């Protein structure tokens, strides 16, 4: 609860900051300090120190899983702020408002990581989505940004409609919106409503996490949105929705009495396939990363496919690893003058630190051992193996992972093995140090994943 209330308040604070000052560094400081506060508050709650005693009437349930996720999401956002706060302020004149919107989104993220009723899921998803529509379109003069915002908005609302239809049908069958109570209530003869509703809900959530064939908005929106916001969208937001997804189906699938593995596996396979295959032919690194985020979502879907302890641990690791790496890459991308692969040519010569850290980020995304990305993928694959059915999916995922190496390594090839100028904007030493810190974290957690996993069991 600390996180939800504080983030909403911080959003308001930032709104007012924007009114009283236009000094960019003030805004940046307030935002960063606020986020730090938020992070600390959440860590405090993890250790049982609640700032607000609120009777949530079982609509929100705060467990270790959700709180750990919040910590990860806030930490990632903190790094994101540290790396990209200047670039956020460069997008337009409404700097403070962007930060306010980001805090609102964080509020939504902390809601969906602890919701216990479909109503709050719906509200949380909307609180996440609506600011995102705006952030996507925040580069108002840029037609691509406009186009992305409108596409995102239209398709997002469409999926909201589908989600609502799903929720209604589930309600019709069970007579409640509460996800754990829904399991107890059983009304014979109405299961098919429940199943259909759940399926519709699944589809709309699949849309939000950009799983195929509901992923079509992703490349266009990620490509069109200002790069700093793409970074946020592709990482923290996506991870947040994933947590909601996992939380939702933690109860629902097992309660429905149906075998969901088939359709989840089909969606997973399609996501992996489309994400990875399409990424290969891209010329723009940004768009490649958009497709890669689809591909990564495919791997995260394994958590749904094989619901067991391994996948719970895995999704946490996955979100962490994926967020760290993607934020890092996007932070570098923002600094690049040219977003195509050619733009990266020779970066290793002009900006060795950037190139080296980007390489580590890419290796993590590709799932190479010694990076956290490996353990993320490992847990996903292991959970699927453990669940024992649909092994073909595991092999399919492997093939796709191999394909992913091809396009991730294209960037490495450009940076290290090809000649070019690799032009970037000016890079501050702090930026470099933070990148190094992130790369260090990726490797540290890649060698000792226990440091994260122990939290789930303490």
């Amino acid at each position, binding site marked *: 609860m600390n996180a939800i209330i504080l983030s909403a308040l911080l959003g308001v604070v930032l709104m007012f900051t924007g009114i009283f000052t236009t000094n960019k560094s003030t805004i940046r400081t307030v935002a960063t300090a606020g986020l730090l506060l938020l992070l600390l508050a959440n860590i405090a709650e993890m250790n049982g120190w609640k700032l607000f005693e609120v009777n949530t009437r079982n609509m929100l349930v705060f467990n270790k899983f959700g709180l750990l996720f919040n910590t990860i999401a806030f930490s990632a956002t903190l790094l994101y702020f540290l790396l990209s706060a200047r670039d956020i302020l460069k997008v337009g004149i409404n700097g403070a408002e962007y930060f306010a919107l980001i805090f609102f989104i964080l509020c939504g993220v902390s809601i969906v990581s602890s919701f216990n009723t479909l*109503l709050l899921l719906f509200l949380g998803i909307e609180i996440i989505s609506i600011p995102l529509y705006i952030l996507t379109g925040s580069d108002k003069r840029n037609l*691509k940004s406009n*186009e992305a915002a409108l596409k995102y908005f239209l398709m997002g609302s469409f999926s909201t409609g589908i989600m609502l239809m799903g929720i209604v049908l589930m309600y019709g069958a069970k007579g409640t919106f509460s996800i754990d109570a829904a399991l107890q209530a059983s009304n014979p003869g109405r299961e098919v409503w429940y199943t259909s509703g759940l399926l519709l809900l699944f589809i709309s959530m699949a849309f939000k996490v950009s799983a195929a064939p509901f992923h079509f908005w992703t490349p266009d929106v990620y490509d069109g949105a200002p790069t700093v916001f793409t970074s946020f969208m592709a990482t923290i937001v996506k991870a947040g929705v994933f947590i909601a997804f996992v939380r939702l189906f933690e109860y629902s699938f097992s309660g429905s009495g149906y075998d969901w593995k088939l359709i989840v596996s089909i969606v997973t396979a399609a996501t992996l396939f489309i994400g990875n295959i399409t990424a290969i032919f891209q010329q723009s690194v940004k768009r490649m990363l958009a497709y890669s985020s689809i591909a990564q979502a495919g791997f995260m879907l394994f958590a749904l496919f094989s619901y067991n302890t391994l996948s719970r641990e895995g999704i946490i690791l996955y979100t962490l690893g994926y967020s760290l790496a993607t934020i890092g890459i996007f932070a570098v991308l923002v600094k690049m003058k040219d977003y195509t692969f050619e733009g990266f040519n020779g970066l290793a010569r002009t900006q060795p630190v950037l190139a080296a850290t980007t390489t580590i980020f890419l290796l993590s995304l590709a799932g190479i051992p010694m990076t956290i990305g490996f353990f993320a993928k490992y847990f996903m694959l292991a959970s699927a193996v453990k669940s024992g059915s649909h092994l073909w999916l595991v092999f399919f995922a492997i093939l796709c992972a191999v394909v992913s190496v091809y396009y991730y390594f294209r960037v490495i090839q450009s940076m290290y093995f090809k000649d070019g100028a690799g032009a970037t904007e000016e890079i501050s030493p702090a930026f470099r140090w933070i990148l190094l810190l992130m790369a260090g974290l990726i490797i540290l957690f890649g060698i000792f994943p226990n440091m994260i996993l122990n939290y789930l069991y303490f």
Partner: protein
Amino acid sequence: MPINLYIFLALALFSIGVIGVLTRRNAIIIFMCIELMLNAVNLLLVAFSKMHLADSSNKAMQVVTNGADAQLFVFFIMVVAAAEVTVGLAIIVMMYRNIHSVDVNFLNRLKN
């Protein structure tokens, strides 16, 4: 009234909304069709609310709700819809300011 009738009616409205999204090019009309979908959902929610109310007098059924939650859900949907409309129309207007059209077919700079 049999609940099936409400279901079919809601589904019909919902599907008409979907068809509208699929076939129209005007962003505003597409948006309106989405509103139509939301209304279909609202209607069904209210119907289910009353269905569960009817169930609560039926001893054979497990009583979960008196239907108020569903009607409140409708209320929240309307809240969200209002918020969405604010943002959506702002986006459409912004778009219009830039390209002087609300035809979604012109939105194809981003592709492949």
